Each structure stands twice: as structure tokens, then as C-alpha cells.
């Protein structure tokens, strides 16, 4: 059982660091002791702690014992290792004497390395790790794109998949999954909301995922080609399901007895045949509109009727479109597969009218790229930002070390005079840097481990696989690598400085390299200011994006609205549109009677809820085939929906009770569609055609409402069409309740009202409209928070650095300042001079930073909203802010300079 294994990361660390025989014997010993002694005696947690302690001690002990000479050390040159050990010990002693200096350096490095490790662990989990499938590199996703409607990531119709299977030789398997549905786990106990995905029986074999327990589906349990060739209406195969590991744990306490048992889903019996592995999820791109968490997997069963629709209109909400996962045949390249699918798409366009009208093309995308593609901009930007923070941290430490080198000039010169050669001094300096870096990276790891928790909490819901985040071997290797790179960056200048000391500095009153050193340090500080400016520009642009995104009019008033979803599906109830409409009417009435409720409405797909429903439509005079070139959001609503949501009416009227009559066809459209219908205005009264329950119908436009951002706050939705719920009473519905009181206080009363009417229906997605809006702001807010934190860190580090260099320069020039003051210079002019020196550095940094930002802020690209990467005000504001901070950092040492007592400084 996986849960009783030793900690994976510790094992991987040992595997990485141990070599040869020793690796096998040590790992073998630890595994044996772990499983036979420690685990049974002390339990899993203590055993895992024990294993970690053993692993870390093993590594440090081996390193220490190998470095320590086992015979009395021979004095003198010797090999590098013992010498290095000696240098490290010497460095440790010397830092011990200046704990303040060491602490500042270690904390600075820890911040830089910790931030890098934390962000990298996110990048690792989301982008780098393989998807949890067999041979995942060979998996691709197939989508339709429509050139006329300009749509990407369109689900593919199941009959098309059957054609692919017959005609395409580039693949070894095509698996199909339709939209995830909501259902209720009924039977014993409180009804529980579950999500159900219906998939082709070969999905798990195409993905290469075995069952955790029981079995996966076998062919015959809802196979596509059989159903299509469908000359015989086969006997219905047994209704079987697989459960997710999560549901198995939550509801059944991981009981193995559940396999073979019959459970009730929305009142229908289903036999459980298997449990999926704990880490299994079907990863699809979030904008494809498939729900992320699936509790129940059921093999698809197509009814013949679905396929006979094939020559008719495409009905995107029907059962027969979905996502397609395929595995490339060995030796076939992605390009070859894509070429073959192009050819098939071309044949379909010739033979099928709506393929031609919609300009349907088939796109083959590597699964991993498709799933994580949208997350790339955020992660790449964040990785860039933390790299900058680490650079700034390194520069600060380099500056500290250089200043310290000046303070130790006596000691270094003495060692040079006593015959220490350059190599020796260089090595000593590098040993100091290495020690600081090692301490910094250890502290950084702790910091990272700790901050990863808040990172995950801050992460937007659409960041895939964020929950798999953890410190594994890859992350540790990255930390090690970044520590080494950091050591080289911050250690080089101080090491060269130390190595070029001369014995004669002992007797020279002023230290000869001071001017050169000051120049180096000034350059370092200026670059630090430049890097900080770049981060501040990034944070400023993100801040503007968030502010503008928050000002977007979503097309509804989110304040005071509570929402929840229901799935109207239960045996012998809600059968047929009339029964569902009747139920909805009753529930709306009950909810409307609750105290504080101002309006109650229903919609088929709630705005920003992440579910799509689009339909072709036609304008007056267009033939049904031509409809396929148009695509609109299709929404069924009840009459008070707009009032409850606060969506404004621009022309005509909302729906009224009389519209529910089945012989009346009416529709409300949004502004965008109104413009398409009648560019000059006057859409009310026009006719619009769309498929309803498989039939083409024409309806009269009775009203025009404002545009609503259905899918994403950032982009305008496509045109939208609203029809009365009674005319297409879907099973999955969202209720919105507007209240004059606190929306959250309504949850209890709503639940009680529902229980009276339908005790077996679970409510789910119970949240306020403001929650939906907050989720939509999630990715922007995530990027802003992190870039903001990093920019703040950069400002602090850079001002500490600037302060350090200026006060160092003041100390160096105490003598000169004393003379000038003795000669009558006024304190103000001395102060001015010091501030001017500092501000020159900051100014150079800011100018360079602005130049760099113009390039780097383009990386933010798609993260920005309505703000140009070269937004002038942001640059000006950020430059002013940084100048202010720099002024403060210079002013403190300047005051000290003007307080110099000429008598004392000259003595």
C-alpha cells in the first residue's frame, strides 16, 4: 500500500546523493527497519519522521566523515577537501564573531532562495510533472475549431469520432467523454450531490490507467461503433460505474465491499465495478467547459436517435458531443497525425453540410500542452519575478561582503603578507560565501515549505494540478542549483576583491582598492534599483489590471444575490418539461415568500459558472444550414431572472407569465445580438430562429438586455439568446435569489424550503454572485498578490542596499567631510552632497530599470487587462515611488555625515 511507504522525497534525495553499493545497502537497511520495526511500533507519522531524520543524518554524516581526514591530518597544502573543510570551519568561526552580519546575509538569501523554491514547486506541480497516465507524451486531445464562428476547443460529435476510428491510422485509440453532469447519490442517508462523467469504455485503457481496485470498463459497456452501426437495438448493457478515490473514501470509507454492490444515482441502480487511483483525474483545458472533479464514471451508451440527428442541426447541449482523447500510434509524429485529421476534416466538409457551413477543422494538440497552456503566462511571469528577487538578494549580500572585506582589510593584508597566495585567499572567500549560501538555502527551504501552503490557498481554481504540489527531488535539485548559481553571483566580486589584497596595504594609511571597490558597489546598487523598478512596474501593471477588471460591468448586480444549483432528475419525477416547469414554479414561489427576498429567478447556465451552452441560430431569411455559421449563448430563464440578477433592460420588455404558453415563441436577446439582427436599432419585433428540442423554431424578439459576461470577466461574451424556461426545461438549473439582507443568511431558509418540496434533491454550488465574481478575478488577483509581495521584498532589499552603500561611502569620507566642514562648509551642503550622490545611483538604476521594463513587462502579456505593458502613468508613478524610498535611504546617512565633528574626524 502506497500509504505505508517511506517518504518518497527522502528516498529520492538519498537515491540522488548516494552512489554505488552504499546506495543499495543504506536504502535497503532503512526500508527494512522502517517497515519491520519502526512502522509497527510507532505508527506512520513517527515512522516517516524517523525516516527523514535518518536520511538527513545519513547525508550530513557521510559528508562530514568523508571530509574529515581519518588519519592525523598532514599539515600544509594537502588535497582540496580537507583544506576546504578547514576554510569552512574558519568561516563559521568568523561569522560567529559577527552574528549580526551573518544573520542579515542569511535572511536575505533565505528570502531569495525561499521565494524561488516556492514558486518553482508550483511550476513543477503544474507544468513540469507528467500527467498521471501511462506514457503521457503520446496522448493528444482532439477538438473542432470553427473558422466561421471563430471558435476553438469545440467538442466533437460522437459520430465523427466513429469515423475517425474507422479512417485514421495514426492513432491506437480514441476515447470520448461528454460533459460532466450533476446527479444525486440517493438511497441510504442524506442525498449527496455527485458529478457524473459519461465516457467511452476504452477511456482508461487509452489513458493507460489501471483501476485501483476492481476493474475498469470493458468493451461492450457502451461502445461507440456498435451503437452507430446500430442496425439492431441491442439489449441495454448492464448499468455499471466506477467511483473516484475521493468518493470511495468520503462516502464508503474505502470499503472494498463496495465493489459489486449496487448504488443508487439519482434514483437509478448502478453496479460499482471499480475504484480509480487516488491521483487520477481527467485533465482537460478549463476553457473547454468540463468540470474538474468527477465522482462517478459511467460508460457511454448512445441511443440510435442521437446519431440520426447527425444530418440535422448540431445541438451542442445534446448528448453526442464531447472531448476526445487519443493515443498516437508508435512512430507516428504529431504532424503526421494532424495531416491525417486535416484530410478527414476536409472529407467531412464535403459530405456534411454543417461541417462546411461552420468551416469545421480538427485540431490535434498534445494533451499536456493543452491542459497547462493557459497557466503558462502566470507561472512564467512569477518565475521571472522571483529570479529578480534572488538577483537583488545576491547583490545585497555581495555588497555586504565587500563592505566587510574593507573592514577586514587589516586581517586580509596580514594574511597576504604572511604568504597566503591568491588562490588561498580566493578559496577562503568562496568558503565564506558557500557557508552563507548553504545556511541561506536551508532557511529558504523552511520558508518555502511554509509559504507553499498560502500559495495553494491563494491559487485560482483554474490552476491545474496545484494540489499535487510538494517538495520532491526535482524541487530540491532546483534549490541546490539556484543556491550554487547564487553563490557564484554574490561570491565572485568579494572573492576577487579578497584575492587581490597586497601585504603592503598593512602599512598604507588608506586602503588602495577603496575607489575601485566603491565603483563596483555603486554599480551593484544601481542594478539593484533597476531590477526593483522592473518588479514594481510589473506589480503596478497588475494592480491596474485588477482595478480595471473590478470595474468591468458584468451585466448584473452581484451584491445581495445568493445562488445555488439543482439537478432535476429523479425516477418518476420531473419527467418531461412540464413537470420540471411546475416544480420550478412552486420552488420560486416558496423562495419568494422567504423574509427579505426581493426577487427569485432561474437560469440554465449561471454567468461565470464555467459551463457553456451554445446553439446555432438564424436571422430572418437564413436557411437552417446557414444557421450553423452563427453561434450564440443559449440561456433558458424564468420571468423574474433579470430582475433578480439586476440585468438591465434596454428595449422592449422582460418575459411575462403569458410567454409560458407553448404556442407562443418569444426570445430576449442581448445588445450584441440586437446589433446583429438590426444594426440600426429596432431588434424588438424581429424574428430569430434556433433549434429547440431538436426542432427548428422561429421566435419573436420581445426585449433587449445589456450584455452579460457569461464565461469570463475579461472578455465580452458572444451574442446571447434567452428563451422562457418552460419552452426548454433543462434538468440542470441555477437559482438566483436577490435579498435585501445578508445573502449568506438565506442559505438555511432556502434549504428548509427545498426540503419541504423535494427532500431527495441536494443543493450544490451554494454561493453568492460575489463569490462567482471573486473566482473570476482569481488568476489576476493571484498574480498581483505574488508579484506585489516580490516587488515589496525587492523595495526593502534595494533600500537596505542603497542605505548600506551610502553610509559606507560616508564612513569612508569622514576624513574628507571633516576637512570640508573645518574649512567652513555648511552642514546642509554636506547633506545635499551625500543625498545627491545616492540619488545619482538611484537615478541611473531607475532609468535603466525603465528601459528593461519596457521589454520585460511584455511577458505579463495576457495577464494584463485593459492596460498597455508600456503604460506611461505606471512607469512614472513607480519611478516616483522608488525615488521617494531611495531619498529616505540616502537621507539617514546624509544626516550622519552633516553631524561629523571636524575635530574628531581629523584626529
Amino acid at each position, binding site marked *: 500500500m502506497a500509504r505505508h511507504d517511506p517518504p518518497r522525497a527522502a528516498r529520492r534525495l538519498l537515491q540522488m546523493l548516494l552512489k554505488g*553499493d*552504499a546506495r543499495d545497502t*543504506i536504502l*535497503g537497511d532503512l*526500508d527494512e527497519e522502517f517497515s519491520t520495526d519502526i512502522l509497527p511500533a510507532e505508527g506512520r507519522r513517527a515512522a516517516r519522521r524517523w525516516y527523514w531524520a*535518518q536520511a538527513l*543524518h545519513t*547525508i550530513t*554524516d557521510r559528508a562530514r566523515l568523508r571530509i574529515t581526514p581519518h*588519519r592525523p591530518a598532514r599539515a600544509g597544502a594537502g588535497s582540496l577537501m580537507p583544506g576546504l573543510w578547514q576554510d569552512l570551519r574558519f568561516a563559521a568561526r568568523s561569522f560567529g564573531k559577527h552574528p549580526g552580519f551573518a544573520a542579515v546575509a542569511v535572511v536575505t538569501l533565505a528570502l531569495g532562495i525561499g521565494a524561488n523554491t516556492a514558486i518553482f514547486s508550483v511550476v513543477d506541480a503544474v507544468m513540469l510533472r507528467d500527467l498521471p497516465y501511462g506514457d503521457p507524451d503520446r496522448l493528444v486531445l482532439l477538438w473542432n475549431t470553427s473558422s466561421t464562428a471563430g471558435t476553438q476547443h469545440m467538442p466533437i460529435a460522437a459520430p465523427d469520432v466513429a469515423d475517425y476510428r474507422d479512417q485514421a491510422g495514426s492513432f491506437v485509440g480514441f476515447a470520448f467523454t461528454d460533459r460532466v453532469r450533476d446527479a444525486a447519490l440517493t438511497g441510504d442517508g442524506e442525498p449527496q450531490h455527485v458529478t457524473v462523467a459519461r465516457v467511452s469504455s476504452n477511456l482508461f485503457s487509452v489513458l493507460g490507467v489501471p483501476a485501483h481496485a476492481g476493474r475498469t470498463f470493458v468493451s461492450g459497456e457502451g461502445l461507440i461503433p456498435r451503437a452507430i452501426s446500430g442496425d439492431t437495438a441491442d439489449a441495454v448493457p448492464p448499468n455499471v460505474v466506477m467511483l473516484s478515490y475521493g468518493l470511495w473514501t468520503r462516502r464508503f470509507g474505502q470499503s472494498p465491499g463496495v465493489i459489486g454492490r449496487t448504488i443508487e444515482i439519482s434514483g437509478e441502480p448502478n453496479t460499482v465495478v471499480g475504484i480509480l487511483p487516488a491521483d487520477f483525474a481527467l485533465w482537460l483545458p478549463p476553457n473547454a467547459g468540463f468540470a474538474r472533479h468527477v465522482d462517478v464514471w459511467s460508460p457511454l451508451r448512445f441511443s440510435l436517435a442521437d446519431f440520426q440527428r447527425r444530418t440535422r442541426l448540431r445541438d451542442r447541449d445534446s448528448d453526442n458531443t464531447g472531448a476526445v482523447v487519443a493515443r498516437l500510434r508508435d512512430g507516428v509524429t504529431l504532424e503526421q497525425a494532424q495531416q491525417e485529421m486535416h484530410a478527414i476534416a476536409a472529407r467531412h466538409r464535403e459530405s456534411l453540410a454543417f461541417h462546411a457551413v461552420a468551416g469545421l477543422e480538427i485540431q490535434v494538440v498534445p494533451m499536456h500542452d493543452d491542459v497547462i497552456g493557459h497557466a503558462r503566462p502566470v507561472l512564467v511571469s512569477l518565475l521571472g519575478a522571483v529570479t529578480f528577487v534572488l538577483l537583488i538578494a545576491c547583490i545585497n549580500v555581495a555588497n555586504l561582503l565587500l563592505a566587510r572585506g574593507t573592514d577586514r582589510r587589516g586581517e586580509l593584508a596580514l594574511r597576504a603578507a604572511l604568504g597566503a597566495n591568491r588562490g588561498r585567499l580566493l578559496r577562503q572567500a568562496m568558503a565564506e560565501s558557500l557557508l552563507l549560501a548553504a545556511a541561506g538555502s536551508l532557511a529558504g527551504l523552511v520558508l518555502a515549505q511554509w509559504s507553499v501552503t498560502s500559495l495553494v490557498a491563494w491559487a485560482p481554481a483554474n490552476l491545474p494540478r496545484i494540489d499535487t504540489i510538494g517538495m520532491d527531488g526535482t524541487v530540491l535539485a532546483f534549490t541546490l542549483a539556484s543556491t550554487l548559481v547564487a553563490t557564484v553571483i554574490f561570491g565572485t566580486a568579494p572573492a576577487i576583491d579578497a584575492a587581490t589584497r597586497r601585504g603592503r596595504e598593512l602599512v598604507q594609511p588608506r586602503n588602495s582598492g577603496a575607489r575601485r571597490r566603491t565603483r563596483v558597489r555603486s554599480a551593484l546598487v544601481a542594478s539593484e534599483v533597476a531590477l526593483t523598478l522592473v518588479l514594481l512596474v510589473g506589480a503596478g501593471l497588475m494592480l491596474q489590471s485588477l482595478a480595471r477588471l473590478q470595474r468591468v460591468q458584468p451585466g448584473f448586480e452581484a451584491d445581495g444575490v445568493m445562488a445555488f444549483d439543482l439537478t432535476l432528475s429523479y425516477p418518476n419525477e420531473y419527467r418531461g418539461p412540464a413537470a420540471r416547469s411546475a416544480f420550478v414554479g412552486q420552488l420560486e414561489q416558496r423562495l419568494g415568500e422567504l423574509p427579505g427576498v426581493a426577487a427569485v429567478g432561474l437560469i440554465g447556465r449561471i454567468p461565470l459558472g464555467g459551463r457553456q451552452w451554445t446553439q446555432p441560430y438564424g436571422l430572418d431569411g437564413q436557411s437552417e444550414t446557414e444557421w450553423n455559421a452563427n453561434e450564440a449563448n443559449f440561456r433558458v430563464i424564468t420571468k423574474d431572472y433579470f430582475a433578480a440578477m439586476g440585468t438591465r433592460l434596454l428595449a422592449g420588455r422582460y418575459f411575462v407569465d403569458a410567454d409560458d404558453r407553448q404556442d407562443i415563441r418569444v426570445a430576449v436577446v442581448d445588445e450584441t445580438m440586437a446589433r446583429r439582427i438590426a444594426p440600426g436599432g429596432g431588434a424588438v419585433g424581429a424574428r430569430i430562429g434556433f433549434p429547440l428540442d431538436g426542432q427548428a423554431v422561429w421566435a419573436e424578439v420581445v426585449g433587449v438586455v445589456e450584455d452579460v459576461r457569461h464565461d469570463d470577466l475579461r472578455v465580452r461574451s458572444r451574442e446571447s439568446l434567452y428563451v422562457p424556461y418552460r419552452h426548454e426545461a433543462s434538468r440542470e438549473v441555477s437559482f438566483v435569489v436577490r435579498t435585501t439582507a445578508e445573502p449568506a443568511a438565506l442559505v438555511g431558509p432556502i434549504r428548509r424550503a427545498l426540503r419541504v418540496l423535494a427532500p431527495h434533491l441536494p443543493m450544490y454550488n451554494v454561493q453568492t454572485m460575489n463569490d462567482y465574481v471573486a473566482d473570476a478575478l482569481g488568476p489576476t488577483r493571484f498574480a498581483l498578490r505574488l508579484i506585489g509581495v516580490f516587488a515589496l521584498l525587492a523595495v526593502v532589499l534595494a533600500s537596505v542596499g542603497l542605505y548600506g552603500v551610502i553610509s559606507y561611502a560616508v564612513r569612508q569620507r569622514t576624513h574628507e567631510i571633516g576637512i570640508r566642514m573645518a574649512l567652513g562648509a555648511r552642514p546642509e551642503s554636506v547633506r545635499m552632497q551625500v543625498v545627491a550622490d545616492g540619488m545619482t545611483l538611484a537615478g541611473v538604476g531607475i532609468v535603466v530599470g525603465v528601459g528593461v521594463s519596457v521589454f520585460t513587462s511584455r511577458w505579463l502579456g495576457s495577464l494584463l487587462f485593459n492596460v498597455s505593458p508600456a503604460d506611461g502613468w505606471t512607469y512614472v508613478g513607480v519611478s516616483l515611488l522608488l525615488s521617494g524610498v531611495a531619498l529616505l535611504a540616502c537621507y539617514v546617512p546624509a544626516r550622519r555625515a552633516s553631524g561629523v565633528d571636524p575635530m574628531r574626524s581629523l584626529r
Partner: protein
Amino acid sequence: MAQTLGEFEQLIMLALVRLGAGAYGVSMRKEIEERTGRAISAGAIYTALERLESRGFVSSRLGDPTPQRRGRPKKFYQLEPAGAEALTRSYTAFTEMTKGIRPKLDDLASQTHAPGE
């Protein structure tokens, strides 16, 4: 060349003598931990053993893999004559130097503690 043994090396070789034929990492570590109360890591044991082996004091052979070890073989160690000789030398030196000093040691130990109490 003077073949001196460190304290840790002595502990390891003494454990080998005590355990006889069945001595390998886990059993040696338990033996030393139980008798001396010193917690030691697998890494430390094997580093010392490798070093002793390179000096010809101990020798090793691989045993059979077991499932608890995930198929990894055990590595058994035994004392070689040269090792036994070195250990004897250290042991003799130690016992000669410690003869009859226990009362004096206890005395010293109690003195150092006295002022603090």
C-alpha cells in the same frame, strides 16, 4: 604505519565481534544504540565500514535480497585478522590506562557538579 582507531571505529568493530556472523547495518546500529545510547545514522555506519574495509580491517559480502528491503541485498560484514589485531591493541591500551581509575573519575565528576547545585 601506525594503525590507530577512532572511537567510532572501535564501536563499530566491537559490534562486529558481538554480533558475529549476522552483522549488517541494521543489527549493528541497534546493537550500538542499545548499549551506548548513541543514535547513529546508517550513513555514518557505512562510511566508517567502507573506510575500515579499505584498510583491510573488515570484509563484506552481499546477502540475499528480501521483500522488506524492496529487493535490495543485505551487506554482511566480518572482522579480519588485521582488524582484530588493531582492535586488540586499542582495547589493551584502553584497559591498561583505565585500571583502577574509576573511583578517581567519579570523584572528579562529582566535584564539577557540586558548585552548580
